[in-house]
């Protein structure tokens, strides 16, 4: 993996480069704060216990589908972007390429899992 060296050195840690993902991390973080408060309030304070009927009734509505999908997209983006920042700061070998690729795949799998759970749901 020595041949990757020059490429990796140019992207040495989240402190150098990556200013767009840095900014988007702040933006998505603030958005998540609002979305999380809504999610938490709805699940814990409105409409009875967390059983199938309660969750299914909410998830059948298109408006909540949009809310939940937005929430999960922001959460996955923010979380995996955070993992990327950790990889950039602590992994300085060719393994960096492996771990970033690995979490790209994990992210896409979880995005698909969310989509097939939320979108076709009829209750």
């Amino acid at each position, binding site marked *: 993996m020595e041949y990757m060296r020059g490429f990796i050195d140019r992207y040495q840690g989240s402190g150098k480069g990556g200013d767009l993902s840095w900014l988007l991390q702040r933006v998505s973080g603030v958005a998540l704060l609002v979305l999380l408060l809504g999610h938490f309030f709805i699940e814990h304070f409105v409409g009875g216990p967390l059983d*199938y009927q309660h969750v*299914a009734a909410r*998830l059948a509505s298109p408006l909540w589908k949009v809310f939940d999908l937005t929430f999960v997209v922001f959460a996955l983006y923010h979380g*995996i972007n955070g*993992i990327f920042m950790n990889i950039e700061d602590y992994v300085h070998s060719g393994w960096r390429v492996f771990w970033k690729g690995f979490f790209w795949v994990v992210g896409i799998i979880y995005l698909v899992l969310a989509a*097939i*759970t939320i979108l076709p*749901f009829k209750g």
Partner: protein
Amino acid sequence: MDWYRGRPHHISYKWHEGFVAWIFHRITGLLLILYLFLHEWVISTLQNPQGFTKAMAALENPLFKLLEVGLWLVASYHAINGLRVVLVNFAGAAERENYQGNVWIFWVIFAIVFVAGAIPMLMKL
């Protein structure tokens, strides 16, 4: 961090208030993404009502109720410290004297928010 000094890619850290808050921010962040993966996996059982009911019944276990308080600890820390970081970055709170002060203000706010949320959770145990 002395063991790391002089290594080819070494980053030098100073043990001030913000650094400790930042270390915890990374640890809580990693715990939260791990939780998101597990949470999404459990919620995907909604496609099968029996499966969902079974999964939710398993979560009634007191161990999970206690873990929920741990989740609140981690999530409230990450959210409130994240807000502090945004203020440091964009609201001119990065000056040295303000910066040290705001970490201590953050710990107080975090403690109040965490305890206020944890009391009703523990009362349901």
